């Protein structure tokens, strides 16, 4: 079925908005990454000369090593505690019925509206794919890169 001019325009505006948001989010990362290869201590953009000396200095910097090690320790403990608490809560939510359990399940799991397969495709209960399913499909595919097993 051919799409109308309104739908085409809406698709173009949507893609432009996504590009704008991605640019807004990724531009600081690009600027900081380029600035890290600057040869001089005084910031010049774009850099006049490229160098890796700041990275050598960063690796040798004791405060950075301590901060990174502390970050790893905090992350390990918080992940472990979150995993244990989350697993226990998921078990209780699945096996028992208590006040607001259905509401919590609807908010956290969204099992009543759609399911997500391991390949990342969402199947909605309604014939039309909902926006929530699309967002969740995108989120699943984005987070499965690093976090979830593929």
């Amino acid at each position, binding site marked *: 079925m051919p799409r109308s001019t309104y739908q085409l325009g809406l698709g173009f505006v949507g893609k432009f908005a996504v590009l704008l948001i991605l640019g807004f989010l990724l531009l600081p990362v690009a600027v*900081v990454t380029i600035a*890290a290869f*600057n040869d001089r201590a005084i*910031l010049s953009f774009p850099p006049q000369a490229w160098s890796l000396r700041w990275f050598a200095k*960063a690796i040798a910097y004791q405060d*950075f090593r301590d901060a990174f090690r*502390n970050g790893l320790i905090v992350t390990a403990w918080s992940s472990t505690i979150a995993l244990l608490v989350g697993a226990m809560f998921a078990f209780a939510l699945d096996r028992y019925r208590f006040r607001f359990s259905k509401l919590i399940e609807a908010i956290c799991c969204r099992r009543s509206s759609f399911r997500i397969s391991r390949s990342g495709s969402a199947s909605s209960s309604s014939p039309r794919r909902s926006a929530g399913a699309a967002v969740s499909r995108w989120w699943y595919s984005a987070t499965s890169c690093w976090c979830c097993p593929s």
Partner: protein
Amino acid sequence: MISNLVYQLGFASSNFPFAASLCVAGLALTIVVLSMLRLAARPLDNIRAH
């Protein structure tokens, strides 16, 4: 921790390239650690829900 360090170096000491290198190095090291954890957790892929 690292963010305080970056803030101090970038804005208090005005050494922006060094602060930027700390950011990039921290990001790269985090990605390396996450990749190693994912490799270590690969046997868990075989677990199926019942």
